[in-house]
Structures are given as C-alpha cells and as structure tokens.
C-alpha cells in the first residue's frame, strides 16, 4: 500500500533537507535502475532484436538479406517445423496425465497417511535433479537390456522381444513424455497439496455427517474448492507443451524423430546458423504462448468473479 505523505514533511537525518515525495523518487530510481537495465538488456532488447532478425536471412556473423515474411512462410512449409509442432500433442496428453496423477497423489497425501512425508519427498525429488543428470539417468534406464528391460523381464517379458525404447519412432516420444511426467509431476502435486490444505475442513466434517464417501468428498468439495488452480495449471500446461524442450534435448538430443519445436529451433540457430528462421520460429511460438496466457488471464478473472457468486447461491440453496 502506497504512503500518502501529501503534506510536505521535512525530515531529520542524512536526507534531512528533502521532502518525502522527493525522497521516494530517489529511492524508486535507485532501487529500480539496475533491475530495469538488466531486464531490458536480457529480455526486451533481445526480444525486439528477435522480431527484427525474423525478417532476414542471416547467420550470426556476416551479411544479412531482407526476406520479408519468407521465414514465417517457411515455418509452415518446412516438414520438420510442422512435425515438431505436432509433437506438442504428445506433451499435451502427457500434461493431462501429469495433472491427473498430481491431483490423485495430492488427495491421497492430504489425508492422514503413514510416511506421507517420505512419499511426498520421493515424488517431488525428481524435480530437483539437474537436466543433464536426468538425461544420463534415462539414457541408462532405457538402454536395451538395462533397467527397464530387466524390470519387465522380472514380470515375464522376453527381453529380446522388447523394442528399443528411444529409437523406435512408434514409442520413443511416449517414453520422453513419460520421463517428463516423472520429472515434473511432483511440482504440481506439491502445489495441489498446498491448495488442498487451505480448503475449509468444516465442509468435510459436515459431509461426513451426511454420509459422503471419499469420492464424493473429493468431487464435490475438494475439486470445486481448488478449481481455479487446477484450470490455471491446465492452461499453463498447454504453453508448457508447446515449448517442451528439456527431455528430448537431454535424453535423445532430438534424434529419431523426437525433435520438438524448441529443440529444432535450437538446432537451426546454433548448429545450422539459420538465425532468421529460428527467430521467426521463436516469435511465432511466443505469439501462441501470449494468446494462451491471455485466455488464462481471462479465465482467471471470470472465475474469481463467478466463483464467489456461485458459492454464495449454493449456500443459500442449502439453507
């Protein structure tokens, strides 16, 4: 909350001769200068540069040629770009699974559970492992005849009949999606646990007296109470799927048809030096993300308003 020292009070001390208003101005300027410079230097300036470059055919060093919208046309006409965009669908399916699992385990762990701290920790810990390490862990995990194959042979599969998990183009993308779920599920789970902890417990007590079972309690009390967070995460998952990068980058390096949009963009920019095309790809995806975020903000706004009204009318009906 801002101060309202409208009367021009004078102060003792080092800055004694200054009015409150001027002092505020100085503090504002001093505190914001460095962060704003950094923000412009590493976020907004590159962003505008990116838009500019997207109209050129260029490398990092050397001559630039103006090509107009050609790079944007290329995104849609090149097969690799389009295939990469299609891969996001895998990740969208994955993120729905991820959020459902997160909800399930959050619901189980908010109940009184023996060892809940251990389970929560075990499910969350994969988030804290660095990308390159995760990459090696799963290269090892999926190698033919190694961990996954051995585990499956314990339950009766014949190792020789198992596919090459990361090379077989029919399944390798699903495997990468699975690793992605493995890595990030815990994050959503912890978030949902936090949200569920703030649900009014008297509602559960009342429901119990009415004879509600666990499912009813979950679907009629828990889920509606944390609806906003769930939907927001679902929308965030869409932009997350569009920009899926880490798992294919560290596990397969984008080989064997696993190159997602950003992996492809990274290859084009830093290996093939097609800087203009890469910038156009980035701008295009960013536009998509901004649209999705716009929808998210709209939903957030609508839900916060509607939710309180609905909530009131429901209560009214019950009484």
């Amino acid at each position, binding site marked *: 909350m801002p101060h309202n020292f409208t009367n021009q009070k004078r102060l003792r001390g080092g800055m004694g001769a200054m009015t409150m208003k001027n002092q505020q101005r100085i*503090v504002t300027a001093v505190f914001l200068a460095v962060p704003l410079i950094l923000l412009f230097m590493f976020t907004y300036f*590159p962003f505008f540069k990116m838009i500019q470059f997207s109209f050129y055919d260029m490398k990092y060093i050397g001559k630039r040629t103006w090509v107009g919208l050609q790079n944007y046309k290329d995104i849609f006409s090149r097969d690799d770009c389009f295939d990469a965009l299609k891969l996001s669908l895998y990740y969208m399916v994955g993120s729905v699974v991820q959020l459902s699992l997160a909800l399930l385990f959050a619901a189980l762990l908010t109940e009184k559970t023996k060892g809940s701290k251990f389970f929560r920790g075990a499910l969350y810990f*994969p988030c*804290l*492992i660095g990308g390159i390490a995760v990459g090696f862990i*799963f290269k*090892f995990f999926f190698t033919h005849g190694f961990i996954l194959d*051995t585990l499956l042979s314990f339950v009766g599969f014949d190792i020789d009949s198992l596919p090459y998990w990361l090379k077989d183009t029919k399944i390798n993308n699903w495997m990468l999606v699975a690793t992605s779920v493995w890595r990030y599920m815990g994050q959503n789970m912890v978030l949902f646990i936090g949200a569920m902890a703030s649900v009014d417990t008297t509602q559960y007590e009342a429901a119990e007296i009415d004879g509600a079972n666990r499912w009813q309690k979950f679907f009629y009390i828990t889920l509606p109470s944390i609806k906003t967070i769930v939907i927001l995460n679902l929308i965030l998952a869409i932009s997350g799927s569009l920009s899926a990068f880490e798992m294919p980058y560290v596990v397969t390096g984008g080989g064997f048809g696993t190159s997602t949009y950003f992996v492809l*963009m990274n290859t084009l920019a830093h290996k093939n030096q097609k800087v203009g095309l890469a910038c156009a790809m980035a701008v295009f*995806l960013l536009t998509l993300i901004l649209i999705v975020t716009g929808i998210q903000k709209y939903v957030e706004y609508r839900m916060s308003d509607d939710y309180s009204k609905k909530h009131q009318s429901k209560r009214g009906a019950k009484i």
Partner: protein
Amino acid sequence: MSRPYNIHRVQKNKFNAQKILFPIFKYALLILAAFIALVPIVTCIITAFKTKSEYSGTSVMTLPKSWLNFDNFRVAWEKGHMAVAFKNTFIILVCVLVGSTFISAMIAYVISRFKFIGNRFIRSLFMIAALIPGIASQVTVYQIMYNLHLINTLYGYIILMLGTDVISIYIFLQFFENLPSSLDEAAILDGCNYFGVFFRILFPLLRPAIITSAILKGVSTYNEYYMANLYLQDKNKYQVISTSLYAFTGPMGNQYQYICAGVIITIIPALIIFLFCQNYIYSGISQGAVKE
C-alpha cells in the same frame, strides 16, 4: 432424533469395507509411485559402486559386491573436472543469491509501497518477461553477450542469471503485501528515511521470504545447464557442475559405471538441500502458485 436401525447398519458396513480396502489400495498406489520415482535414481547408485568387470558381467539390478568401491567416483571427479566445477558453481551461487535477493527485494519494495506513474507498467513488464521462454530468446541474447564480451567469463554468466529472475520477485512481492505499511510509517515518523526503512526495518523481517527464494533460486541456478553450456565454453577454466557431466559424452558414452558416479556426485548437494529445507521448498512452490 433416532434414525431407523437398518440404515444405520448399512452405512456402518459400507464404512468398514472402505476402511479396509481403501488403505490397501492407497498404500499400494503410493508405494508403486514412489518405486517408479526412485528406481532410476537407485539403479544409478547401484551401478556407481560396481567395478568394471561387475558392470559388464552382472545384471543392472544385481547389487555391487562392495559398497565401499569409490573408484568410479574418483574417475568421474577427475574426468568431469569436478573440483573446478564445484569452485565455479560455488562462486556463481554466492553472487547470484546475494544479488538476486537484493534486486528482487528492492523491486518488490518499490512496487508494493510507492505510488508513482508507471508502477503498474513496470510490474507487468516483469510479469510478461516471465512468459518468454529462456531458450527462445537465447538466439539473440547470444549476440548481445558476444558484443559485450561477456562470453567465457564467470561475471557475464552471473549478470545474465541475475537479469532473468522473476520467481524471487513474486515471493517478495507477496511478502511485502502482507507486511503492514504502518510499520514503515512509524519508522518514518521516528525520523528514518526510506533507505533506512528498507535496510534496517523491512529487510530483517524478510528472512523467511529470503530463505525461500534463495533455496528455489539456488536450486535452479545449480541445475541451469543450457546457458552455462552456451556462454561458458572454455570447459577447463569455467566448468560448472551442471555441465560437468558433458565430459562423459563421446568415447565414454557407454561406460555407465563412471557416468552414474558422476550423476550421483551432482545430485548429492541437491539432496542435502532438499532434506534440510523441504518445507521452505514446498511453501515456496505454493506461494508462487497463488500469484500465477
């Protein structure tokens, strides 16, 4: 008021069935999930302790003969230049954490406490910046870093890490909004100026927010590998932990006993932080969620 007897009994039976079956189902699910979450890591630990002949001669699930065989760790430590890597990562962590704590706290203070033209605009500038995926903008950031001669310098990387930080701002903003502004007013009436209010009154109160944001920022800095790989190219001098494992690609790419040892070395610091600070991490995640 008395309920009809039979209804009561039906409910009680249903209750019992739930009471027995549900926990079995629940714990089975949780154990399965924990198993899936931990198996990739545990097999890595097992493999890290195996000798070369054990590794090639036994199944990946067989336990190593000796849990005291640290040879692989020694090799991984040397091949990955881990001594240099830990030193560099430590320098980066200290600078980034101190810097980002002050920067974020200062932004949050000014934005949440002062009314000035452009306040909302600046707030949105930071929030929108969070939407731009880092990987996308690196295409052009690379050029800027190149022109400023910041490539292959630790301070260049540190400055870059400071400039792309929004989680901490979120956390501090939220914290400031919950601190009553009567606190600042009282201090000002006592003759304190705004710098004094920030550094002497509010900053010490921020301790919980500082710890939370430092842990989250610390873990993400520790694990950041994409920009480190791009901007710290001289691997002998500027190796950091997150990229040290790259040493194992190429000819060593299938000697997993060494790779696993390297992986375990890089995970250990994260594990220690996690074991001691899990509650801060959890609360940090939930705080970020409310704002998003």
